[in-house]
């Protein structure tokens, strides 16, 4: 089972992101479950959604407390919300920001983690470029595919086009591709640096 927790703010499509991710996993023939953190939050309030997928039937209904990956859609949540609780040292982190991971002021918090699994991605900039709106959720899923390799890029692509019909789907798919390429190249960069 692979479990993902997505943090963001109301209005950023946090719940949609988990849903699309689950559809992508479903399209790959896996069992998948997505659900929101069920608040009565207004626009701008911190929200969480979850997605888990597995080759076996998923029976559990508990929230994701020990995620394999955490996606952070809004960098202003850092130091406000307990974003990384339960994340194992083998876990992945993808943060939406144009800063680099080391500039985010985590200190020694991630010393035990794998550097090549900790990434940032300027998903809002990518979204602005391709959608004209600051909605980073779809782009981050492309980044997620590149970072973890758990879901194929084209499954995300298909699920995004299914969710957003027509030209909006096209534009989101372009954002997915751009973020995928961005993160994939960063992952390669880190890998090269660590083998040197």
């Amino acid at each position: 089972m692979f479990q993902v927790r997505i943090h963001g703010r109301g209005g950023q499509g946090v719940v949609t992101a988990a849903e699309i991710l689950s559809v992508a996993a479903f399209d790959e023939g896996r069992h998948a479950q997505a659900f929101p953190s069920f608040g009565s939050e207004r626009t701008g309030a911190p929200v969480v959604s979850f997605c888990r997928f597995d080759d076996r039937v998923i029976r559990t209904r508990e929230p994701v407390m020990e995620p394999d990956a955490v996606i952070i859609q809004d960098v202003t949540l850092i130091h406000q919300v307990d974003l990384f609780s339960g994340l194992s040292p083998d876990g992945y982190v993808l943060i939406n920001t144009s800063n680099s991971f080391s500039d985010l002021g985590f200190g020694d918090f991630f010393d035990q983690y794998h550097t090549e699994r900790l990434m940032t991605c300027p998903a809002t900039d990518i979204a602005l470029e391709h959608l004209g709106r600051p909605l980073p959720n779809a782009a981050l899923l492309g980044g997620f595919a590149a970072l973890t390799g758990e879901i194929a890029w084209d499954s995300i692509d298909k699920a995004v086009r299914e969710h957003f019909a027509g030209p909006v789907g096209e534009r989101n798919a372009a954002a997915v591709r751009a973020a995928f390429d961005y993160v994939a190249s960063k992952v390669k960069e880190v890998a090269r640096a660590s083998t040197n």
Partner: protein
Amino acid sequence: MLRQIEGSKAIAETVALCRPEVVCAYPISPQTHIIEAVGAMVKAGTLAPCEFINVESEFAAMSVAIGASATGARAYTATASQGLLFMMEAVYNAAGLGLPIVMTLANRAIGAPINIWNDHSDAMAVRDSGWIQLFAETNQEASDLHVQAFRLAEELSVPVMVCVDGFILTHAVEGVDLLDQSFVDSFLPPYEPRQMLDTKAPVSIGAMVGPEAFEEVRYLAHLRQLDALERIPEIAREFFESTGRESGGLVRPYRTEDAETVVVAMGSVLGTIKDAVDARRDLGERVGVLGVTSFRPFPSDAVRDALAHARQVVVIEKAFSIGAGGVLSTDIAIAIHHEQTLLRTVVAGLGGRAITQRSLEKVLDHASRDELAALTFLDLDQGAVDRERARMHATRRSGPSAENLLRDRSAVSPRAHA
């Protein structure tokens, strides 16, 4: 067709396949997505003929359903929590009149303090109303149960409530195999009312009944629920034969054959419990699960059979009767009525508190060592309760307890739930 779909949408689409003729809607979380989706189908003309009525309260919603059903239409509505209580008088009335309305209850806690999250207090509050109450374990079952519910309701002239855990199921996106129209049409024949407002054959429905016959009327309602005890498994079997899916029925045992300890529960938490039970089985413990699908009518015989060999029964309940204890537990106790069995009640998941596998395993661990008290509350913060008791003791004007407890808990674990 198997689709990755939100629970509410799967339910709405299945309800539409049942060809309801009157749907009345009043919004309340977490039921809203269901009625919104049905409303959109009516508005778009894909569900027709069907009247979709946006009413002004839940009391009106159930009342509209009563009028429609008494006029021979297949009627559907959905609600939760405060909404169910607001329609309470009409809920009893629909059952008393024997009108086969189907209602989805997206289970949610009852306030005050206001809380939109899941537990079973709402369903328990109407357990004596005369409605059949079926609990869904997954969204697949939630969808399937609606077709069975209309069939059951109309055969027996008894309203049926399909209980679906709010948010946990209604807002979860997962794989659901949706039925096709031809199957539903063959499984669910057109509604043939037993009583109907008809100018060609006028009847009076709802006359006063005095002491001379009231008891008989009530007893008859009870007998109809006992009939349902027969029909629920038969309908589920028939459904299984066509679809291959084990949706519905009275109870659902899992690894109970040689189990010393059996956990009993209702609804979506059964999935997490099964995971916990598998984990304990791997450690060599003999534990099993009994899911209760039909809460009303209560399947005493089936429960007794399933628990006959258990030394200990642990009932995990998402509700309780304040001042007494477990609700489901009481029915279980009456069903098994033997002194040798240890009966334990664990109240869990109130107001949406997550029920985790870790906590469940702790319960099973205590149970295996006979250390479980007769009534416990899962993951209760005893310290916070004690501190509030102390405050109440220290000052007369200690203020609203709910707010005090919130502040206390958030001071201990700041933003733990953010």
